[in-house]
């Protein structure tokens, strides 16, 4: 489009990157925190039982009576066993069909405390926890879920275009990788952006392309539909056949549900001892009831095998091994890699670190954009330039403050506040809005420095706030011994320290406005300037 292919790609990288970089940054921040979603849950709801790994028999003995009592008219029950960090507690789900014609079907779920046999009270100190925070990275907040999902698909695609065009734009990718010029102003920001991007490139490609794979049904249904001559039924039939799913009709005749404990015993002979993740029970109490016992997924892939039972006799009706085709396997593995549910503690931290580096990649790219276009001394910045600068500051540092505010709100909002969990999120976005406005009042370097200090303070204060608001905190760790809580608060302190260090560098005036035309080759002025 302009000059050589590489120059066009630099243009594309710059603009595909800049135009939505703040939402990408938001996705990176909330998504990265998502690798510790369950740990954040624990910190935000410390009174909840932390983890109850228990026998299948005991889980069934808790879940089934509860469902019989609360969801006797449900069309489906799902019992998700407490298995590991990802599913720390027993949870039951149920779908209730519409009571009358034209009504709406509903679904509900409850966490169960196996020690008391009752539902965990989620109304006192209600909190969105890490789940609400991490879900924002793919459904945003305040806007319609489907719309958000579509929007995120577009952004993820732009991110992928940004990555590939960024690689192409980079003439000397390996040489530059080993080049880091500190205190060289503009050049240092570019070097930093390159270093962050190239060193984490496999992760960035994996996370972005697998993010797109989540979007296949939303954005690329056309290929599958078209290949089947736009016959959705035939496509669905082939898909169900692959996954070994068959339709089930309710008979209307009542019949008692088979003994789940016996079913579980039998299922373990096929899936392996202790390898049950959950029970899917369709039409419980009906003569046509069906029980599907899901195994735990092995390895990276999210896919797991299952055994199907007759829901009244408790006999196996289908224990065939499902053979996924290569492409579906690749997709399942990519999704598994994206979610990283298989990761143990060390690998989880690596995921978190990679996410942070990706976050920093987006941030340094956005900062570089403004530094490169910084108006000469004394001349007035255009409105567009000033806008980007302010949103950069208000997002790159401001969002970090907003996330801290989400945690502050969790500790400080009154226990019995109506819609308490919603108010945690409102607090986060109100604070973000304020940090977006603040840079308007200050010069760029003042705003960078002051907001970074505020961010450092807001994280440093979190462990102290805990001392006054909850029973278990960092300073009585020896009494409760919960590493998750201590780890969260230590991470907050570490974050505060890192932000303090950053504040010393981030607003340093550029030493020299050295422009390296030859090496950079991407001197493109702002469109419309």
């Amino acid at each position, binding site marked *: *489009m*302009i000059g050589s292919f590489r120059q*066009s790609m630099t243009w594309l990288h710059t603009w595909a990157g800049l135009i939505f970089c703040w939402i990408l940054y938001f996705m990176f921040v909330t998504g990265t925190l998502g690798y510790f979603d369950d740990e954040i849950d624990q910190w935000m709801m410390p009174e909840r039982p932390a983890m109850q790994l228990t026998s299948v028999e005991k889980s069934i003995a808790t879940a089934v009576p509860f469902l019989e009592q609360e969801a006797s008219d449900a069309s489906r029950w799902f019992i998700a066993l407490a298995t590991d960090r990802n599913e720390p507690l027993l949870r039951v789900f149920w779908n209730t069909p519409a009571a009358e014609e034209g009504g709406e079907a509903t679904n509900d779920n409850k966490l169960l405390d196996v020690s008391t046999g009752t539902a965990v009270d989620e109304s006192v100190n209600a909190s969105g926890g890490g789940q609400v925070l991490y879900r924002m990275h793919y459904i945003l907040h305040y806007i319609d879920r489907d719309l958000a999902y579509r929007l995120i698909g577009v952004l993820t695609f732009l991110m992928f275009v940004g990555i590939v065009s960024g690689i192409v734009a980079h003439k000397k990718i390996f040489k530059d990788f080993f080049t880091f010029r500190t205190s060289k102003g503009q050049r240092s920001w570019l070097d930093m952006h390159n270093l962050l991007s190239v060193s984490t490139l496999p992760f960035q490609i994996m996370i972005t392309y697998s993010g797109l794979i989540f979007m296949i049904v939303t954005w*690329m249904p056309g290929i*599958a539909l078209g290949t089947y001559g736009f*016959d959705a039924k035939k496509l669905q039939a082939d898909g169900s056949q692959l996954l070994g799913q068959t339709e089930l009709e309710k008979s209307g005749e009542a019949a008692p549900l088979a003994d789940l404990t016996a079913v579980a015993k039998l299922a373990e002979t096929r899936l392996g001892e202790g390898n049950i993740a959950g029970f899917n029970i369709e039409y419980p109490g009906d003569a046509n009831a069906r029980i599907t016992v899901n195994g735990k997924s092995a390895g990276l892939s999210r896919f797991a095998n299952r055994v199907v039972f007759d829901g009244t006799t408790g006999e196996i009706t289908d224990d065939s091994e499902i053979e996924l085709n290569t*492409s579906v396997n690749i997709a399942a593995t990519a999704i598994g890699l994206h979610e990283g549910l298989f990761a143990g503690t060390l690998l989880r931290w690596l995921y978190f670190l990679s996410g942070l580096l990706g976050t920093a990649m987006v941030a340094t790219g956005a900062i570089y954009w403004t530094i490169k276009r910084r108006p000469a001394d004394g001349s007035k910045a255009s409105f567009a330039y000033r806008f980007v600068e302010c949103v950069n500051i208000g997002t790159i540092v401001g969002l970090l403050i907003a996330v801290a505010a989400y945690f502050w709100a969790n500790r400080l909002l009154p226990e019995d506040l109506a819609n308490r969990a919603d108010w945690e999120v409102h607090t986060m976005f109100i604070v973000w809005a304020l940090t977006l406005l603040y840079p308007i009042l200050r010069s760029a370097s003042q705003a960078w420095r002051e907001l970074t200090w505020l961010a450092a303070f807001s994280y440093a204060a979190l462990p102290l706030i805990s001392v006054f608001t909850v029973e278990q905190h960092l300073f009585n760790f020896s009494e409760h011994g919960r590493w998750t809580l201590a780890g969260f608060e230590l991470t907050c302190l570490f974050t505060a320290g890192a932000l303090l260090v950053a504040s010393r560098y981030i607003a340093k005036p550029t030493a020299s406005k050295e422009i390296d035309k030859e090496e950079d080759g991407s001197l493109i002025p702002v*469109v*419309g300037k």
Partner: protein
Amino acid sequence: MAKSLRAPGRWHVTSRVIAALIPGFVLVNAFGIALALILANFIGWSKFDAVAFSTLWSFAFYTAVVMWIFSVKTLRKVWLTLLAGLVVTGGLAYGLLVFEGTL
């Protein structure tokens, strides 16, 4: 070299964005359908395997198409090539659907 590095005009950008969003996107779908049908009819894959393969890599095809759209010099070439691509892949897909008796 420096002379050619002007900022692209506004119309240039808008036109290419539209080209990427509409004909570019349709082209990726048509190409994906044609590819899946070729795999299913001539390589012996099951239809569902072929569809899964084609769809899985569709975002990579799309990336290539978008990068190409933003690298070509003239708008004329962008639109004419996209149009030609659509006719070829769309025609191929349609022909294969008729050939295998789906349509």
